[in-house]
């Protein structure tokens, strides 16, 4: 059986149930055992008629990014969908409303824009919806049913998913929507199919210790927090991080956790650090503008050596920037953005499962290394849905605090004692004989203010070096190499949400015969310099693609390794095009070849 790999785009306005239709689609397919990656694009304004697109890629085998071309486009609103018709590949399908309520001038109907290579399917969506639900509210469901029938998906999983979706509402609503779906489905099945988009059989997973679910990056962060037994959360709403707080607000109280919406991000991080000081597993979540406000407090977290976890989901910047578009331009702020020598741990997961892992591990690290830990996501990862396998047993510790023991407290407790692992035993408020005052001032081992040059040097070294242990923190991927082993023509060094595209590009390059591998760097601070240098040694040319203008990751790597890389930056506000990356990889592979030939020529000359 041919492996399934199709991508469906549903486009409409906010009131059309576009995102809801995409949601049912991806959940149903995940239920059916497929691997799903999905990403929705919303309008910046909340209500009304702004454009929404839901893109869902369905595959038998795990893939790593969305495709540039979709196989099917479903239009629920032509004015929004028309610019996206070009996304559909040749012989792909465009499904649209053929019974609109009002007339339009030439060119305002989507059928005017379907290219000769694409297959048009017009259907009476509104008429069917009105018949089944006495209103046009179910147009999205009718269209979904049609799509499912057309490309041969099983209707039962959709029935279940629709029932889930409308759970809690009147039974009648579920029934009406199921009926609307079935009408669309029957029509889709009956339609004479000219496109070549089909769904095959899904593979079932066999891992007994894991649950397969579908969630987006933010939901995975929440799950990671919950599995790590988060106790307190303080946050201030900001796209695209808000849904982390919203979900936690529902989940944390159920297990006795506390969540507070603060007056601003300064307050959020201050309270988080306060709670961390008091021994609580704590976190906050924000985006670039909020992280900028948090900078001073994070410095306090560094110097006072207190645990805190900050989930940062990047969006287009600087300033308010592009609030609903994705970008990877807060790397500098996350890695460097504090006064003084403010090194902290920065983790950048590359996929949804990574969000879960990094979220849970961030708490362990924050406590064990007594430091703020930033988990750096972006809008694309926060909102991207993927099928993930989550362990049934929490893989995270309940606490990793290094508690002060009795002997530590005897004879004058040294909060910042120089110990072997550099993380000093910590007395928590409420602990007998542990009273001490901590400060943002440079201090001695006791925590008393000290501006002695030696002390500042020793303490700076302590704060810096203790973090290096995080590079071998147990059970988390710090960096990982994929693709060809040994020496390669082109090595792709990637990070964050963009790494999925890096992998896809790498696989495509290999298909073209280019020796290629890709390394993801999950821990951006401290950097795993050993493996990065090894990777660069093995790579003829090092290609560093990222979604920011300045090449922030490339600069980080170049600065840290003193070696040059090929920086490739784009800021489209959307995921990077794999095709564009491939062009660059091909070019680099040629450079590498030319160098090789040059070398052998030289060698020959020498030999002669």
């Amino acid at each position: 059986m041919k492996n399934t790999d199709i991508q469906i785009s549903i486009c409409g306005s906010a009131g059309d149930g576009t995102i809801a239709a995409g949601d049912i689609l991806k959940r149903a397919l995940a239920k059916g055992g497929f691997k799903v990656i999905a990403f929705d694009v919303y309008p910046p304004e909340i209500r009304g008629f702004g454009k929404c697109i839901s893109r869902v890629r369905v595959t038998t085998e795990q893939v790593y990014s969305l495709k540039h071309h979709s196989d099917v486009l479903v239009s629920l609103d032509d004015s929004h969908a028309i610019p996206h018709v070009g996304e559909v590949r040749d012989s792909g399908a465009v499904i649209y409303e053929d019974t609109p309520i009002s007339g339009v001038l030439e060119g305002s109907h989507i059928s005017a824009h379907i290219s000769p290579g694409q297959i048009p399917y017009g259907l009476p969506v509104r008429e069917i919806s009105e018949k089944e639900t006495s209103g046009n509210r179910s147009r999205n469901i009718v269209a979904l049913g049609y799509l499912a029938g057309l490309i041969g998906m099983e209707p039962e999983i959709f029935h279940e998913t629709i029932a889930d979706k409308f759970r809690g509402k009147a039974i009648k609503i579920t029934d009406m929507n199921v009926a609307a779906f079935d009408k669309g489905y029957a029509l889709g099945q009956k339609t004479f199919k000219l496109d070549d988009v089909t769904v095959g059989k899904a593979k079932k997973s066999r891992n007994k210790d894991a649950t397969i679910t579908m969630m987006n990056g933010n939901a995975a962060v929440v799950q990671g927090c919950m599995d790590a037994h988060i106790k307190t959360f303080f946050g201030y709403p900001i796209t695209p991080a808000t849904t982390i707080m919203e979900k936690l607000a529902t989940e944390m109280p159920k297990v006795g956790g506390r969540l507070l919406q603060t007056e601003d991000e300064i307050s959020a991080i201050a309270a988080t650090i306060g709670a961390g000081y008091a021994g609580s597993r704590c976190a906050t979540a924000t985006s670039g503008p909020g992280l900028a406000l948090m900078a001073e407090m994070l410095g306090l977290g560094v110097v006072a050596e207190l645990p805190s976890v900050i989930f940062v989901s990047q969006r287009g910047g600087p300033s308010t920037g592009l609030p609903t578009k994705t970008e990877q331009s807060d790397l500098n702020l996350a890695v460097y953005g504090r006064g003084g020598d403010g090194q902290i741990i920065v983790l950048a997961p590359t996929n949804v499962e990574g969000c879960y892992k990094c979220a849970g591990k961030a708490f362990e690290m924050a406590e064990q290394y007594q430091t703020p830990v930033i988990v750096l996501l972006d809008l694309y990862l926060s909102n991207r849905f993927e099928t993930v396998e989550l362990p049934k047993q929490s893989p995270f510790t309940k606490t990793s605090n290094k508690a002060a023991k009795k002997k530590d407290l005897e004879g004058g407790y040294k909060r910042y004692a120089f110990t072997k692992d550099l993380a000093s035993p910590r007395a928590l408020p409420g602990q007998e004989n542990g009273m001490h005052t901590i400060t943002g001032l440079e201090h001695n081992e006791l925590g008393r203010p000290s501006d002695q040059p030696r002390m500042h040097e020793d303490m700076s070294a302590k704060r810096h070096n203790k973090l290096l242990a995080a590079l071998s923190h147990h059970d988390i991927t710090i960096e990982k190499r994929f693709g060809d082993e040994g020496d390669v023509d082109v090595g792709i060094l990637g990070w964050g949400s963009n790494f999925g595209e890096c992998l896809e590009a790498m696989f495509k390059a290999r298909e073209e015969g280019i020796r290629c591998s890709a390394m993801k760097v999950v821990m951006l601070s401290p950097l795993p310099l050993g493996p990065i240098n090894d990777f660069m040694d093995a790579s003829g040319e090092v290609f560093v693609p990222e979604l920011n203008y300045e090449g922030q990751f490339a600069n980080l790597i170049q600065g840290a390794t003193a070696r040059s890389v090929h920086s490739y930056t784009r800021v489209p506000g959307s995921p990077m095009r794999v095709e564009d990356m491939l062009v660059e990889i091909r070019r680099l592979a040629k450079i590498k070849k030319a160098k090789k030939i040059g070398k052998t020529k030289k060698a020959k000359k020498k030999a002669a």
Partner: protein
Amino acid sequence: MGNISTKPVYLEDKLAEIKSDGKLEYRSKALPTWCPGCGYFSISEGVTSALNNLAIKPKDTVVVSGIGCSSRFPFFVNTYGFHTLHGRTLPVATGVKTANDDLTVIAVGGDGDGFAIGGGHLSHVARRNVNITYILFDNGIYGLTKGQTSPTSSLGFTTSTTPYENHDRPLNPLMMMLSFGSSWVGQGYAGDPGHLGEMIEQAIAHRGFSYLHILSPCVTFDKTDKTYGNLNMQVKPIPDDHDSSDLMAAIAMAQNVHKPPLGLYYKEDRPTLADGLDEITQQSGGGKNVVTAKAAE
């Protein structure tokens, strides 16, 4: 109250006194680094005696401060202490208290710390009724940075940044805190340590957010305005017939900036932030000490 001391409190005198009572337990080994005669000495005195009287153990107390002369305070008490950032006293204190209800959390800071850079937090900590005590040391000046104008500096006051005199109208902290919904508001004076101690004790004992405003001279950088001499002449006790449950009466009394009344302005019992959070826990069907369950996706 009554006999208002006209003399500043001097360190040497104090040292002799504290050796004899139980308050020593609350005293840090580090001696205050304030200028001799600074009003802050009587505040630290008041806090230690209040904790002593209330029998709150040092290990269960956290003093959170911002940045400023006043914010050096935690170093001089033998409790848990957190000297944070300029202006961030209240949110850090909120975090500490939210993480552990059993702690007595006292936030301290100066007028610049609280009403300038940290002004955004005041209203929120008040309306949420976080069960902490906020002691504001108002010297009408930036002490630590050596004498610039502050949000409570008087009109016409000259400082290093207002060499031609201050034209910015001062805030009315008491009125602000009353209108923000503080459930306990009082005023004390560093020149009347006895009364101040009582006020601190009451403030800490209050269940909810208590705001204690303390008029405290900066003997080094203010030689003309909020001096002991001037303040001694101005302060007066709150009239006996003031009804401390009457918010409007309290706000009216707060208008009297030139003859500042000392004592309890307002007190109200209402649910605290923690009460609300516990209520949410109940509403969610969860409870404390529940082992973390899987979050529904």
